[in-house]
């Protein structure tokens, strides 16, 4: 580390306190004279014994220690041990007569900042200045680190408080609201037609409002719950999850006549319930936000190479699914029409590559041992305008009126939370009228380093 010509050499900034470990009064005077000549504003105390040294360090907090190597009663280097023991960051410079190179290196290794020979005291101011500057930098860094750690802790705490708040609030809000909703409903039931028309209308409004608030609160509750206790990660077969999802969505699939083509899905490390919720949200949306024609939805999956997942933000290049030779033969796709499920054979080639432009800048936060799977859920629905591609993942964000498409705008927020819990990412590629493709990544199964499960 070199230090360039500095003006501080001639004009050090603040007054410093120097602690000298020296038995020769003449030497200590020479050292002080050198410092004064260089323009240091300082006070100095000279000690000769360990006891005095400790007392000085404790009582007067010197900014720097200048120690002779050999004292009759003590060795200057032992001062280092004292400083360490006192846990104070004070640089120590050896100011000494002849010191062999080996000894010098040894001293530096042990933590001395520098050494200056008494015969070449002119070098002392530079050494002192450098030592002080390094100390300042160290202190600043320490402070910054401390502040950062505090901020992180604060953030974690406020996050936790917020989640707790959302949970408690939505839970406690539910009770009185249930009463309002129940009794307005009862009123409506019992007195409909017995009051005038306006009264009936007012009761309807009250019931509607209360019901909507109930679903909002329940959604809020679901959202806060999704982030609270991270469920245990275990190996989950997504094909099984998919079956559940299709069953849960059976009525809307039936009603819309949706056709869902689905790859053979892998085993991932996640929680089955959460995974069901995630896929159900995405497929449910794909059905809900359809155009007038029959919704065609495809669920695809590809393996991301382990080395493509980095800790730094990177672009995940379009990656071909690497189907290991021995398992490429039977890549099945499950096709669903209405509530019917039939398996069809797909050409492996169809699965192999995605369009070259599907690369997406995303941060892969953690690095699971077996890498990630990338899922995509594509529809030919109404699509999303570019300015909304990110914001649709925030809570209660809705792009359409309730009359057009019912919902509270919580599904994608929950989906995002679920995916991010496992270190994955979720994003959407879409343009209005052109359909949407939601993509997300999930860590591959813990016990499985191969491709899709057969």
């Amino acid at each position: 580390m070199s230090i360039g010509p500095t003006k501080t050499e001639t004009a050090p900034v603040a007054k410093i306190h120097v602690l000298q470990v020296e038995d020769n009064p003449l030497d200590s005077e020479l050292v002080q004279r050198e410092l004064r000549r260089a323009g240091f504003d300082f006070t100095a105390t000279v000690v000769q014994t360990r006891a005095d040294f400790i007392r000085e360090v404790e009582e007067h907090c010197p900014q720097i220690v200048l120690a002779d190597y050999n004292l009759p009663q003590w060795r200057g280097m032992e001062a280092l041990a004292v400083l360490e023991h006192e846990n104070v960051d004070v640089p120590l410079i050896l100011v000494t007569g002849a010191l062999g190179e080996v000894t010098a290196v040894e001293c530096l290794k042990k933590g001395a900042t520098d050494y200056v020979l008494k015969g070449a005291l002119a070098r002392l101011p530079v050494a002192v200045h450098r030592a002080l500057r390094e100390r300042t930098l160290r202190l600043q860094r320490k402070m910054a680190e401390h502040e950062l750690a505090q901020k992180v802790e604060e953030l974690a705490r406020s996050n936790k408080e917020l989640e707790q708040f959302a949970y408690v609030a939505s839970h406690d809000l539910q009770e009185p609201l249930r009463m309002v909703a129940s009794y307005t409903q009862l009123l409506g039931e019992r007195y409909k037609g017995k009051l005038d028309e306006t009264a009936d209308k007012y009761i309807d409004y009250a019931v509607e409002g209360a019901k909507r608030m109930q679903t909002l609160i329940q959604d809020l509750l679901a959202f806060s719950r999704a982030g609270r206790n991270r469920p245990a990660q275990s190996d989950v077969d997504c094909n099984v999850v998919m079956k559940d999802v299709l069953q849960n969505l059976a009525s809307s699939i039936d009603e819309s006549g949706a056709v869902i083509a689905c790859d053979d899905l892998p085993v991932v490390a996640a929680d089955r319930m959460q995974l069901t919720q995630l896929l159900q949200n995405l497929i449910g949306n794909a059905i809900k936000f359809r155009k007038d024609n029959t919704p065609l939805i495809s669920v695809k999956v590809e393996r991301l190479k382990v080395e493509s997942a980095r800790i730094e933000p990177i672009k995940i290049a379009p990656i071909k699914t690497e189907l290991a030779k021995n398992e490429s033969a039977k890549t099945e796709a499950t096709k669903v029409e209405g509530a019917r499920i039939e398996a069809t054979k797909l050409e492996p080639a169809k699965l192999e590559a995605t369009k070259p432009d599907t690369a997406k800048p995303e941060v892969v936060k953690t690095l699971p041992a077996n890498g990630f799977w990338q899922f995509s859920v594509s529809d030919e629905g109404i699509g999303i305008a570019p300015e909304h591609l990110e914001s649709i993942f925030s809570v209660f964000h809705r792009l359409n009126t309730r009359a057009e498409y019912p919902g509270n705008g919580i599904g994608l927020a929950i989906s995002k939370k679920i995916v991010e819990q496992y270190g994955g990412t979720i994003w959407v590629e879409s343009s209005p009228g052109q359909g949407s493709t939601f993509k997300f990544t999930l860590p591959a199964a813990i016990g499985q380093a191969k491709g899709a499960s057969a």
Partner: protein
Amino acid sequence: MVCTQEVLIVDDNPADLNLAQEALARCKRQNKISSVTDGEQAVAFLFRRGAYINQLRPNLVILDLNLPKKDGRAVLEELKSDPDLRKIPVVIFSTSQASSDIVRSYQLGANCYVSKPVDLKAYFAALQSIEEFWFGLARLPQGEGE
């Protein structure tokens, strides 16, 4: 043989009590419905203490968890520790959906746990299902308290 079944509802919210009574009144069976609004009353009622000395034992208890004075969990524990009273089926009927509450209730011997549905129709349906199950389908111990 038709005999009137007696239900004890323990809930501190009078509005909830009314709803429950309303729901049970709509059942095809005529049930006698009693209610108390805190845990201490519930225990006194069941153990026939104080004002409840001449009380008949209910055939079914519908118990809320969060109650004043004595918590629903404590009521449940006391009830299920009594060799006689433990025969009475207890349905926990609470807003809580916390799995800790559910697990704890079953550990203490609850016969089933039903979360209070938010929607009125579902709320009525839940209570009516409870009534139908315990008084229509299940066989209960007879001759209790007569």
